[in-house]
């Protein structure tokens, strides 16, 4: 599993885990994120069962198990959190932050030890070590109960499936041209995002943020000026329209 430090300021770090060379064929590639601050760490969208062992091994290179106090699942999909039953054995004292809407569904992945912390529809702010993290509503993008994570100090927005692209293995980490990257995102967004109203609401919300890195769950990451390029592209893209004639 390739680990990339996206941000580091003292004990405040963002690490991205992705591009696992041992990933079985046929499984969508996913970006997992770890945020550390002080003696605490949170794993964002820790991934599916198939990725559990390489993820745990990679994470333990940076932080001891007792330091991972929190998990976050942006929504209920298997590539996001189907590994929960295994994390439940590895981190029995951790808390899982996830949409209230999905609690009774996510528990089907197996959760006997970890504590479910339901995020209300309007979102919430939590303290991790010495920083604050905000769970920003992203409902219907794509899941009907969905959140993104905003770290104002680092200026990083974990944007879940928004900005995601399905690419060939070995693709670069950063978007270098919106013109070349947009076609890789178009069908994904049109098919998976069902609501233009939800899209506009999200764009209005995140446009107010000073985003230095936008980090989706699949594909490349965005830095300025491509963050603004993306928001403009997304705003004009009709979504929920991938319907066969």
């Amino acid at each position, binding site marked *: 599993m390739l680990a990339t430090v996206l941000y580091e300021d003292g004990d405040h770090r963002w690490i991205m885990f992705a591009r696992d060379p041992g990933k079985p064929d046929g499984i969508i590639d996913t970006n997992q994120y770890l945020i550390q601050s002080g003696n605490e760490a949170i794993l964002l969208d820790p991934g599916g069962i198939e990725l*559990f062992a390489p993820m745990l*091994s990679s*994470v*333990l290179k*940076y932080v001891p198990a007792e330091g991972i106090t929190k998990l976050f699942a942006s929504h209920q999909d298997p590539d996001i959190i189907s590994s929960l039953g295994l994390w439940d*054995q590895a981190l029995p004292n951790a808390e899982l932050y996830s949409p209230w809407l999905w609690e009774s569904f996510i528990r089907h992945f197996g959760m006997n030890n970890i504590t479910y912390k339901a995020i209300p529809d309007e979102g919430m702010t939590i303290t991790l070590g010495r920083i604050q993290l905000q769970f920003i509503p992203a409902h219907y993008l794509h899941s009907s109960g969905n959140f993104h994570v905003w770290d104002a100090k680092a200026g990083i927005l974990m944007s879940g499936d928004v900005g995601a692209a399905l690419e060939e293995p070995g693709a670069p980490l950063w978007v270098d041209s919106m013109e070349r990257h947009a076609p890789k995102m178009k069908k994904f967004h049109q098919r998976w995002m069902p609501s233009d109203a939800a899209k506009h609401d999200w764009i209005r919300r995140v446009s107010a943020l000073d985003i230095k890195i936008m980090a989706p769950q699949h594909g490349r990451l965005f830095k300025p000026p491509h963050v603004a390029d993306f928001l403009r592209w997304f705003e004009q893209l009709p979504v929920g329209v991938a319907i066969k004639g």
Partner: protein
Amino acid sequence: MAAPVFIIAASVSAELHQAMIEARGLALTAKNARALAVRAGSKTVGFRAITDFIEELASAIISQSRVINHHAEKLSTQAVTAWHSDNAMAHFRWVEAQKPEHLASIRPHINQCDKQLDALNHELQIGLRDLIGQIDESYKHIRTANLIATSSHVEAATAGDFREQLEVIADNIRKTADRIAAHLNRANSLLSQNHRERKIAC
């Protein structure tokens, strides 16, 4: 490859559920037999006594099947938990081989998971042994049912005009007993196969 215990236990539970449904049919047969015995009057005094046995037998099989069914369901649930722990241990072994820097921090949880797995496997072994014992016990009911069917045929022979109807009831008892026995045999075979394969694996 051996089927996982949670599938075997769930299959045993399903077989016993079917056995229970058959036993309900036997209870209905007992009711029909009683009604017939009342209509036939003095010609079927012996048969009337047998109907009590049929009712008791049906009730005993229903009750025993219910207990085994519940036991097997519980065992299947435990086996799923054991499978989860086993799965987690396989992943943990892989992580150990990678020797990540903070490996020691996860060791207490690995040990805890290992202990839990041992305890669950031990409970499963005991549970499976008990289940085999309970099914063996159920065969006694089948032997009783066959005896009742034979006695019913004997009583039918002296029932005059009611002979044919009583013979139908006696046949029903035997056929139902055979069907229940078939479910027990299938449950037994599933458990014995698992037991043999576990022994070979050890």
